[in-house]
């Protein structure tokens, strides 16, 4: 007997959705038979606006691309500009950039802890991790002046040097967070209900993963060793010692385990960076930004963010303003085509958990 399909709109106003988008699902009983996403609620036309701003002004728009973790976008843009112009970056700036990127990765994963568990109803976890995330944001605030929008990694280096005593503060925070991560494990990963809800849900098969455009922790959760920090190394990641965790399952549980290990690797990287931090210049000064023209050509730089590969394609026509910038976010594939395929056959109760585990960030899609 075939039940009548009900149409259910998840979003745009819905607590279970990540950001502001909509998933329209058709359900039979509790099983999803068809899913379709609708985006566009956040379109601000950044790339169009960048054409009206000069190379440095357009940089201030970048951190708004994806708010949970804005630094990789800045990094991609800065590196693309540097590739195009051939500008050298001081060694110290590279280390500081890695420090900032890894702190941002941690902050983003802390938010993910909250989101993933909130989608499954474990609110205590979210309260803890989002509360502890404030300690990382405090570091950002001291370093860059802003909690969320940093505008710190910019073409030619970083905007300012590390404040005095910053390293010891970072190390202290890392010690604290490492201690807290154990509590998170007890609450979340040892929890049988969490395991029951996540294991075998939202499986991305290993053979199909790369073709479907899966990137980042999601890909690693499907058992494929792939990380831009290793494959296409940028800054000083090739001089640092860290491992890229992979898990075989391809389900929410495996992705959670990958993220669990990655946040620990971030702590490890941060400690190494502080240990190896050279002294010297932090900024290769750019000329007057109003007259700063880039040579004709194009460049594409990509960075490993918590969501996966984020890239920035910039095109210059030799003038002071960009001819075209185009941002590539992981959510391009994750948020639309992958999600639509993945949701079919799943339980309607798992939509939010699957979206959170994919790290969908709607502003990346529409910008």
């Amino acid at each position: 007997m075939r039940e009548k399909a009900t149409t259910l709109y998840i979003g745009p106003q819905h607590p279970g959705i990540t950001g502001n988008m909509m998933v329209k699902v058709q359900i039979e009983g509790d099983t999803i038979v068809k899913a379709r996403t609708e985006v566009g609620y956040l379109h601000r036309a950044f790339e169009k606006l960048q054409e009206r701003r000069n190379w440095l002004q357009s940089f201030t728009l970048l951190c708004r691309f994806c708010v949970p973790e804005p630094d990789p976008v800045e990094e991609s843009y800065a590196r693309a500009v540097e590739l195009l112009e051939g500008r050298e970056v001081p060694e110290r700036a590279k280390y500081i950039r890695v420090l900032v990127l890894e702190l941002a990765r941690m902050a983003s994963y802390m938010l993910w802890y909250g989101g993933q568990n909130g989608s499954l109803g474990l609110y205590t976890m979210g309260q803890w991790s989002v509360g502890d995330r404030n300690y990382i944001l405090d570091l950002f605030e001291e370093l860059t002046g802003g909690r969320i929008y940093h505008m710190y990694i910019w073409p030619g280096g970083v905007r300012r040097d590390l404040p005095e005593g910053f390293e010891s503060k970072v190390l202290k925070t890392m010690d604290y967070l490492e201690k807290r991560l154990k509590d998170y494990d007890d609450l979340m990963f040892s929890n049988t209900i969490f395991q029951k809800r996540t294991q075998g849900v939202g499986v991305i098969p290993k053979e199909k993963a790369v073709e479907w455009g899966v990137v980042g922790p999601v890909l690693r959760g499907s058992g494929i060793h792939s990380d831009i920090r290793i494959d296409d190394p940028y800054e000083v990641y090739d001089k640092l010692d860290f491992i890229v965790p992979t898990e075989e399952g391809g389900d929410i549980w495996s992705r959670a385990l990958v993220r669990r290990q990655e946040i620990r690797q971030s702590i490890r990287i941060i400690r190494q960076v502080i240990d190896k931090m050279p002294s010297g210049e932090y900024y290769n000064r750019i000329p007057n930004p109003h007259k700063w023209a880039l040579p004709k050509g194009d460049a594409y730089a990509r960075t490993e963010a918590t969501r996966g590969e984020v890239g920035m394609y910039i095109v210059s026509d030799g003038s002071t303003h960009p001819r075209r910038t185009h941002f590539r976010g992981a959510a391009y594939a994750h948020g639309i085509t992958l999600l639509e395929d993945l949701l079919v056959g799943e339980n309607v109760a798992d939509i939010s958990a699957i979206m959170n585990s994919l790290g969908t960030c709607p502003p990346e899609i529409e910008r």
Partner: protein
Amino acid sequence: MELFINILGAIVTFLVAFIVGMTYGGLNRKITARVQNRKGPPFYQNFIDAFKLSSKETAIHHGIMHYLGPAFLMVSSVMTLLIVPVFTNNGWFPNLNFKGDLIFLIYIMTFGPLGMALGSGQTGNPNAAIGVTRGLSQMVGFEIPWVMALIALMIQYHTTSIEGLMEAQAQTGTWFMFSSPFAFIAAILAMFGMFRYSPFDIVSAPTELASGPASENGGKYLFVMMSSGSVFTFAKLTLYVDLFLGGAANLPVLLLKTFALYLIPILYGMTTPRYRTEQAIRWFWGWPSFFGLLAIIQAVIL
């Protein structure tokens, strides 16, 4: 005169149940907040919320059943409350407890959710409809161990009257918690589902269904639902105290016992994600029903 006292007693019972249930809800929020590393709202926050909701203008109308849904819920809660004897051997609040027995109670406790289901069905909101379906399926889940525990008690003590059971406890001097431990365990496990706190809160899971059956109910509807929930909480806790903890002779003892019972679901709920409906039903039909079965076997043998 006796009728007057009865009515007065019923009103006082209702008020006490409302106040205690609301305060427990507030304390729940406070304790949850403390576990979550924050200060939390004041314990009387639920009263403020309730009065605010009652003072909101409510211009939602989806038809007569939608309007009656919360009312059914309230009726069911009040009926449950009035059937459950609040104190042992107290002539002041006899309410209706001599008129009904446990079997009637089981029926009346499911009456509210069914009424709510009709009301939510009429809103046309798919979230509400799905939430109600889940709530009813989950009810089927926890009713099994719950009814089994009650049947065990009825068989063991040859009475279906709550007062009779209370007297049996008073005569032997041991609480049923100790004399029928399996029934108690089954009933406590069923209580997790009855209270709909995590891990069995999928009925109103905000990340999936907005707020489930209450999706279309704001303002005064929500006020009625909230107060009926509070009254129902108190009634259920009192019933548990009556059945398993030997009842209570006065208010402080009652509060102590009910609050101790109330802590079990809320403390467990803070550390767990929620089950999906079918997982929840499987869970209830597993260990809790097994203990229920043991309780019946024990009752038959003794």
